[in-house]
């Protein structure tokens, strides 16, 4: 029965992730920790595997479409993977409730980021696509921001796209679609650097990861096909509500306030 619910949860997380163009980690960790009761360390390690799967599944499509800048992605990975190793090592010495609290604050940030991103995308006029030419600017600053994205990825089991994509789009002036595709390509390499630490530390439950990975991949598949049929605004509102609720639950869990129950 647990297998069925894990697949279903992965399906929902993957579907949301695909519909909103985000990594699934910010949903997978709260699901595994709050609903299935895994420790934060195991939830994070398992989430990193799902994040790799999502990225590896989507990356070939973006590369073939000419949207991914592999050279830029690899250059940024020099600092991102280092950040992920430091984040993953730090998580090994932090208590589970401390990770819960940090994750809660991260969810609040992402919730506000989603609201801000929506307001901004409504205000923007066009978007340079695959055939546009561009010049990479502020590479050292981008690498610096990506280092922190790697930190968050290794520490909290997320992809880190919420930092990588803005870093590429704003200071580095990469067109948004290219930034999203390049960020997706980078995620699997970043998550791998962190996941190795969790896996060999024993902080991954493969039997829980397997159904979750299958669910997430199915969710991304269906999500990408539903993208033009579902109102993106409604999905975003539901997602933001879930994120804020999960943020509160993670903070309550971290501070050991068991007020709310599912």
């Amino acid at each position, binding site marked *: 029965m647990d297998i069925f619910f894990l697949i279903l949860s992965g399906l929902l997380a993957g579907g949301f992730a695909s519909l909103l163009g985000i990594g699934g980690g910010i949903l997978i960790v709260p699901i595994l920790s709050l609903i299935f009761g895994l420790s934060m360390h195991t939830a994070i390690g398992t989430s990193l*595997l799902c994040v790799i799967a999502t990225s590896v*599944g989507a990356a070939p499509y973006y590369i073939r479409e000419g949207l991914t800048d592999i050279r830029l992605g690899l250059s940024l990975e020099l600092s991102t993977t280092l950040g992920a190793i430091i984040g993953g090592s730090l998580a090994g010495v932090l208590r589970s409730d401390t990770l819960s609290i940090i994750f809660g604050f991260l969810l609040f940030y992402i919730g506000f980021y989603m609201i801000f991103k929506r307001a901004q995308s409504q205000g923007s006029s066009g978007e340079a696509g695959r055939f546009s030419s561009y010049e990479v600017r502020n590479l050292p600053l981008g690498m610096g921001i990506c280092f922190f994205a790697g930190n968050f990825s290794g520490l909290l089991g997320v992809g880190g796209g919420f930092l990588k994509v803005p870093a590429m789009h704003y200071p580095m002036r990469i067109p948004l679609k290219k930034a999203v595709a390049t960020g997706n390509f980078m995620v*699997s390499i970043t998550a791998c650097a962190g996941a190795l630490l969790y896996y060999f530390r024993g902080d991954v439950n493969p039997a829980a*990861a397997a159904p979750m990975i299958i669910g997430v991949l199915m969710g991304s598949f269906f999500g990408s096909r539903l993208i033009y049929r579902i109102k993106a605004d409604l999905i975003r509102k539901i997602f933001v509500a879930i994120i804020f609720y999960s943020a509160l639950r993670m903070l309550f869990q971290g501070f050991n306030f068991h007020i709310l129950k599912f």
Partner: protein
Amino acid sequence: MLKDQKIYFLIAKVLRICFYLSFGVIAFGLILFVFHPETRSPLGGKTLISLSWSPDDLFCLNPFAWINVGIFSLLFTPFAVVVVSFFAFLFSEERIYSLVSAGVLLILILSLALALR
């Protein structure tokens, strides 16, 4: 000399092959897990992690061995991508990016070394 598009398509191909391989093996392991006579909840802790599986376990259709192999192939997909990028850029005489790929590969190896420590 490899053209730009060739390099990108090669990397996309490696990603696709690794994706189908790991997805297929994990799915097969999961099916075995469901029909395994000693199936318990997958949320039962960390005891399922085993790095000591052997080819015999795979032939005996041990679900944990198959799931572990699938997860291993997923974990090493980024390694494969970076190695292929390194050689692709090397053969296309883009020394800077072959060095960048080598740097990323070294960091991934560092992560593996730290993990195995």
